[in-house]
């Protein structure tokens, strides 16, 4: 728990003439940007689900996306590694390492190895624990048993699951508990050595203990990965993230250091949301 933030009513900090929207732009000279979006718009059929999603994500930091259900945060997250392909139309630019990855020329399969994703409900394959981790690697030609063994051990250790499963790597992953399965799925994503890890409410389907294990894991991972996480849990956002973006009705309302969002939001709407007045 790095940021021990006390959650108290903060309305006293909101000035009388608070803006309706405030997006804090991180100065790119000082901060290394891992991923950024520009003019992002997502349509489901003819319905505009997200507009004006312009955000930059700092490298080796955890950024939380918060907001009520239907606010567009998951839609935004799933657009970042093109999981919305075939589901929705995504317009605009997603810049990753100087390349716009939201174009037809991009090999999405290759791109997703750099920008991994973990979902709300644990989704291990109906394979052994070992094969869950190695499967995507062997499909791309990693065959050395020794190399695979090492990757399995490293990624399971990174996901803080190694000690629990090291003696039963050949057991079916479907026999794991929800929390273990979710950490296995994180390990599986890490095995591809991605730059960025996108997490869509990774602990909302878990019990509190498993949930805090996943949080601890994420805090460990921050040293090596850029993490973007959608969460409904305000305490979780406050505990683990460095930056927080608040979404409302398909727009980013406020984006700032988590500490500022939770203590001195500039927009009254943000304050309403984090104080539990709606959502």
């Amino acid at each position, binding site marked *: 728990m790095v940021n021990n933030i006390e959650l108290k009513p903060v309305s006293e900090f909101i000035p009388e003439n608070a803006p309706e929207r405030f997006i804090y732009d991180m100065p790119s000279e000082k901060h290394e940007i891992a991923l950024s979006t520009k003019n992002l718009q997502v349509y489901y059929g003819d319905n505009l689900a997200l507009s004006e999603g312009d955000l930059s994500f700092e490298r080796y930091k955890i950024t939380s996306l918060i907001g009520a259900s239907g606010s567009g945060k998951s839609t935004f997250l799933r657009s970042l590694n093109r999981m919305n392909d075939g589901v929705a139309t995504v317009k605009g630019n997603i810049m990753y390492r100087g390349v716009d990855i939201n174009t037809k020329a991009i090999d999405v399969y290759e791109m997703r190895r750099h920008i991994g994703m973990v*979902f709300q409900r644990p989704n291990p394959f109906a394979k052994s624990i070992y094969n869950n981790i190695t499967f995507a690697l062997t499909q791309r030609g990693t065959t050395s048993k020794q190399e695979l063994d090492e990757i399995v051990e490293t990624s399971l250790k990174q996901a803080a699951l190694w000690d629990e499963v090291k003696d039963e790597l050949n057991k079916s992953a479907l026999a794991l508990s929800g929390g273990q399965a979710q950490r296995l799925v994180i390990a599986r994503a890490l095995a591809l050595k991605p730059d960025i890890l996108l997490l869509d409410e990774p602990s909302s389907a878990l019990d509190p203990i498993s949930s805090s294990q996943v949080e601890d894991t994420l805090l460990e991972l921050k040293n090596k990965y850029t993490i973007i996480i959608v969460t409904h849990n305000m305490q979780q956002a406050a505990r683990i993230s460095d930056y927080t973006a608040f979404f409302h009705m398909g727009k980013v309302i406020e984006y700032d250091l988590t500490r500022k969002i939770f203590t001195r939001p500039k927009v009254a709407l943000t304050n309403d949301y984090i104080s539990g007045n709606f959502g």
Partner: protein
Amino acid sequence: MNAKTSDKIATGVIYAISSIVALILIAMLAFILVRGVPHLSWHFLTSPAKAFEAGGGIGIQLFNSFYLLVLAMAISFPIALGAAIYLNEYAHKGRFTTIVRTAIEILSSLPSVVVGLFGFLLFVVKFHFGFSILSGAVALTIFNLPLLTRSIETSLAQIPNLQREAGSALGLSRWETVIHVILPAAVPSIVTGVVLSAGRVFGEAAALIYTAGQSAPALNFGDWNPFNIASPLNPMRPAETLAVHIWKINSEGIMPDLSAVSAGASAVLIIVVLIFNFSARKIGAKLHKKLTSA
């Protein structure tokens, strides 16, 4: 009448209706088995049929039924699998998909005797396959294809979308995900469907009368060269199956022990179908258990 009484009456009525369904099945099975089982013997199961004298068996018909089943499955399974993968994993809503789906629906509602007569005209006469195992297997494929496709498609649809998302989030293509993630997870349910459809195919008569033929020439079970005419494996020979045999002897049989042969053959047919049905669930459950715990 208050809610509690009406609920009680409704429960009783529904219970009675379900019992009737079960009773019909049990009565039918009991009738066939009680009449037929006393006639079963190793001799009956293995010796060839006799047209004019008593003491004939159903050996060749039994073999023909299984051989046709295997061939029909070998032809229809790959096609059904491909169609099901397309429909469940690839198809977008559109004209082509609608046409394929409608075709499958119509095909599945065709009476099997129509399939048989169509097979007779096309394969037996036009393609000169003659009354043969090959004609029969193709007719059975047409009969089996829509139901098998539907059953495999349902098996694939039962695999949660989470698995497909997991695959694409790891940078696997849709094809890789289908082949290595979705299909293995669906295997238990696919196997159950295949075995159940095997039971249906095994008992089919109408589609075979005019395609695989109504005669069972003597076979030489020492000759396994499929090009020899007396070989059991020869796909171009006429092959009366067990179900066709039952139909045939009941309509034009002249052997003295006609009713005994008919009863015995019916019992064998029913027993084999029952074995298929029970083992389908067992095998499916076993595979599922193996897949989920191990």
